[in-house]
């Protein structure tokens, strides 16, 4: 059969199956192969909060979306061009996120009445015409896999676990990828179980040969390497990047890393990753609860470590009182909040930006915190580093907001040289310094000086009771209290002198400024860039420094006729901007579905605004 090759700029592939079908692994394998071939890429896993929900049901569907490109890729993509559905439930759950004319690869062995019933299909989807606008490849994946390795000495359960490699084989053929990369991936993945390497590779080849032989797919795709700069790259998720950023900050500052956390979705990987980093001196403490996590981190900071705690929304709520303690004892502390859908337990595995006001204001008393937010998975490295830098140099807690989308999503990352990262200089105290007082401050930043237990001649006491300015003695004096409140506030405000100015993407001035913050960067960027190419006078400001805001914020906001603040919440950043800069009118675009923005929906809204139809949505 002659194979027709179509060159495409970008492709979105969605892998979907039961939680136990290995779709996350196949997705990762496919993205690694794309990275090897030089494509730009972005990935996003989409998994249920149950570990193994009943097989074959919608609730049990686990997905992994990969967007690869010759062009710049900033999001995992709106709609899939290729959907792999291992069972009817996977098809049902994902069809609405699949482009018309997309290629559907289904495991026909699971498309029977029993599975239709479990998935909630009333009619046979293969027979009722509902799939007419797709190119459906009905592959007997389960049976061919079993036949291929029935003599490999594996039990049935293990045999069925290799089905995902049949899928991978089809995809390798479809995208003209080198099978060798897939084999290497498997050899590394199962390096302690050679029998599994052998079986998986055999199935991978079986899938590839099947795709080549059948007539169902007449065209294959070629995605040429992206035009990224030269260098050494890796594919990295937000949570791993966060963990590594903390390690880099610890190394640079010379302060040992102490991370104390309680496991919580979707933040647990940060704790897990750093637990593997003892060789770099990282200490992890799996605390008995969220409160012990943060308070033991505060204790470690008092003793001279870089204290860090990682959590998600409900955990941040539990930590509130202790964040206030860190504000008042003025010690470094990094709090990482990987936001998820709320309130309460909410949507643990889904993404949202609904903790902004909690981060800014969710404490008793006047309790200002530095709040920053990472824009992309790989940039979590830089922002974790930055959170540590600001916290150490300004002696105050920093809340870093990431989210489930950044945490689990991945992108290609140009590996930095840690020698070139900005310095982090703790404001330490020499032993026996006669001028030391616990609340004596650096006059520029207003940060107090750090002195550790064990140092000679510096014995002092800190605590949650209000302290006298300079001396640090307990004080209930009303005027002293007001002074201390103002100093703590001013200290955080002055951080604005130590952060970059806000930048604008797209038009420097014009008809519409799109404002976002944190993890929505990729979608907003792509939408704005597309519209700018179409000639629209549109610009974008993605805020990563939230408290304090960059010093040029007001000036940027003044340059556009209209401003729309886009958030995955009900308008928390818009409310914040209104309180800071009430002179500007703000339009809002909000989505609270536990899902990231789609580029298409953003563009539709922005076009309506530009046409003066902002009331239409």
């Amino acid at each position, binding site marked *: 059969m002659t194979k027709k090759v179509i060159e495409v700029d970008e492709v979105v592939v969605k892998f979907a199956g039961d939680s136990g079908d290995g779709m996350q692994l196949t997705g990762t394998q496919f993205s690694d192969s794309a990275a090897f071939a030089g494509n730009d890429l972005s990935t996003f896993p989409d998994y249920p909060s149950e570990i193994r929900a009943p097989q074959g049901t919608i609730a049990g569907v686990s997905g992994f979306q990969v967007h690869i490109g010759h062009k710049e890729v900033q999001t995992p993509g709106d709609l899939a061009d290729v959907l792999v559905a291992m069972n009817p439930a996977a098809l049902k759950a994902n069809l609405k996120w699949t482009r018309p004319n997309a290629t559907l690869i289904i495991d026909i062995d699971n498309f029977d009445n029993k599975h239709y019933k479990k998935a909630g299909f009333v009619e046979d989807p293969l027979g009722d015409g509902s799939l007419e606008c797709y190119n459906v490849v009905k592959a007997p994946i389960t049976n061919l896999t079993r036949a291929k390795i029935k003599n490999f000495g594996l039990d049935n359960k293990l045999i069925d676990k290799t089905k995902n490699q049949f899928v991978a084989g089809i995809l390798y053929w479809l995208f003209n990828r080198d099978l060798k990369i897939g084999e290497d991936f498997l050899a590394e993945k199962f390096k302690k179980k050679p029998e599994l390497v052998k079986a998986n590779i055999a199935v991978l080849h079986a899938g590839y040969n099947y795709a080549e032989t059948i007539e169902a797919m007449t065209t294959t795709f070629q995605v040429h390497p992206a035009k990224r700069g030269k260098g050494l790259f890796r594919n990295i998720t937000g949570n791993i990047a966060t963990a590594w950023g903390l390690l880099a900050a610890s190394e640079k500052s010379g302060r040992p890393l102490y991370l104390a956390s309680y496991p919580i979705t979707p933040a647990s990987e940060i704790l897990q990753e750093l637990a593997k980093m003892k060789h770099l001196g990282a200490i992890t403490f799996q605390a008995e609860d969220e409160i012990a996590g943060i308070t033991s981190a505060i*204790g470690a900071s008092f003793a001279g470590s870089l204290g860090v705690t990682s959590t998600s929304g409900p955990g941040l709520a539990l930590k509130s009182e202790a964040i206030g*303690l860190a504000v008042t004892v003025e010690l470094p502390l990094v709090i990482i909040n990987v936001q998820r859908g709320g309130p309460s337990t909410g949507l643990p595995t889904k993404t949202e930006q609904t903790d902004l006001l909690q981060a800014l204001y969710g404490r008793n008393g006047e309790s200002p915190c530095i709040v920053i937010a990472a824009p992309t998975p790989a940039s979590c490295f830089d922002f974790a580093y930055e959170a540590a830098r600001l916290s150490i140099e300004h002696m105050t807690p920093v809340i870093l907001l990431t989210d489930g989308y950044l945490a689990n999503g991945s992108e290609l990352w140009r590996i930095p*040289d840690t020698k070139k990262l900005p310095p982090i200089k703790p404001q330490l105290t020499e032993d026996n310094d006669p001028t030391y007082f616990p609340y004596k401050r650096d006059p520029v930043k207003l940060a107090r000086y750090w002195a550790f237990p064990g140092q000679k001649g510096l014995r002092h006491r800190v605590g*949650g009771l209000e302290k006298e300015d300079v001396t640090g003695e307990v004080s209930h004096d009303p005027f002293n209290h007001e002074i201390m409140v103002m100093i703590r506030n001013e200290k955080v405000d002055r951080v604005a002198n130590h952060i970059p100015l806000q930048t604008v993407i797209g038009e420097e001035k014009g008809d519409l400024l799109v404002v976002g913050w944190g993890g929505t960067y990729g979608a907003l960027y792509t939408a704005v860039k597309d519209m700018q190419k179409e000639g629209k006078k549109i610009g974008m400001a993605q805020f990563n420094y939230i408290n304090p805001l960059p010093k040029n914020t007001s000036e940027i906001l003044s340059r556009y006729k209209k401003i729309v603040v886009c958030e995955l919440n009900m308008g928390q950043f818009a409310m914040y901007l209104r309180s800071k800069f009430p002179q500007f009118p703000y339009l809002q675009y909000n989505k609270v579905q536990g899902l990231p923005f789609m580029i298409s929906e953003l563009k539709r809204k922005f076009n309506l605004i530009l046409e003066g139809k902002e009331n239409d949505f």
Partner: protein
Amino acid sequence: MTFNTKDTDISNQDFKLDVQVKWCPGCGAHAVLSAVQKALPETGIEKEKVVFVSGIGCSSRFPYYINAYGFHSLHGRGPAIASGIKIANPRLSVWLITGDGDSMAIGGNHFIHILRRNINVNILLFNNKIYGLTKGQYSPTTPKGSITKTSPDGTIENPFMPGELAMGAQGTFYARVVDTNPKMMREVFMKAAKHKGTSLVEILQNCVIFNNQVHSEITGKDVREENQIYLEHGKPMIFGKNRDKGLIQVGQKFIVAKIGENGVRKEDILVHDSHNPDDTRHYMLSRMTLPDYPVAMGVIRDKKSTVYENMLYKQIAKARHENTIKNVNQLLRSGNTFHID
């Protein structure tokens, strides 16, 4: 842990601070503070390695009254703060000051977990069986039926015994002292400091305002010798004004026996073994209450176990030795990377 350099020239004066101590006159906490200040120089710990951590409550003001590094933290969270300090720097001598409300109610979770982990922190638990700082509500150790501000008809809750809780949490050191006996406090505090792992010292403390004489049945001058038994490892468990009573075991129970009566000889009296890995007797001793038994004082349990931070630093040393990745730059370049040119 070891204290490398012994500071021999220090006295209790080195731990005194020129501040006004704001506990009520007659509060038992004054005596504890003084006993701690006297015990510390005798432990040989360098004064600048001593850290006092506390939660919230009357007793938790303690760090403000002693010349040491101090951290007055959040209600109930002292064990977690102290854990962070000790893990971050195991060379420090970390003391946690807490009360019955702080450790048994709001901080109950952290309290059991520090004991379970056996982090080398010394806990002084001031048990006055009442909430003092909030002015007289019942606490988790208040005897059932007590009339307090929040139990006008008598409490209907079963009280905790700190010793029971500590043993249930696998605590490796548990001792009990009374605030009226400075010598006993000093001796026991020193033993707590020497123990490797979490040491819990329960101090039966009087609250002169809201629960006055709460422990007087135990501590009163005229009754204390009959109603307390001071335990020392390796010595027979004998008590009484005439040193003529002791503990013997009959079946599953201790019995108070009089030496010379019913054929009981001095040699029949049980010898206290605080190091015994079998916890049964420690548990029984900690539960002894009046009027059937004297209340056990001194070190009831002091047994060996692994210490959290020692094991942690061993793992770190091993990982540093074995892993070929020595810095973050190497880490970033490890595993799957792609050269694009």
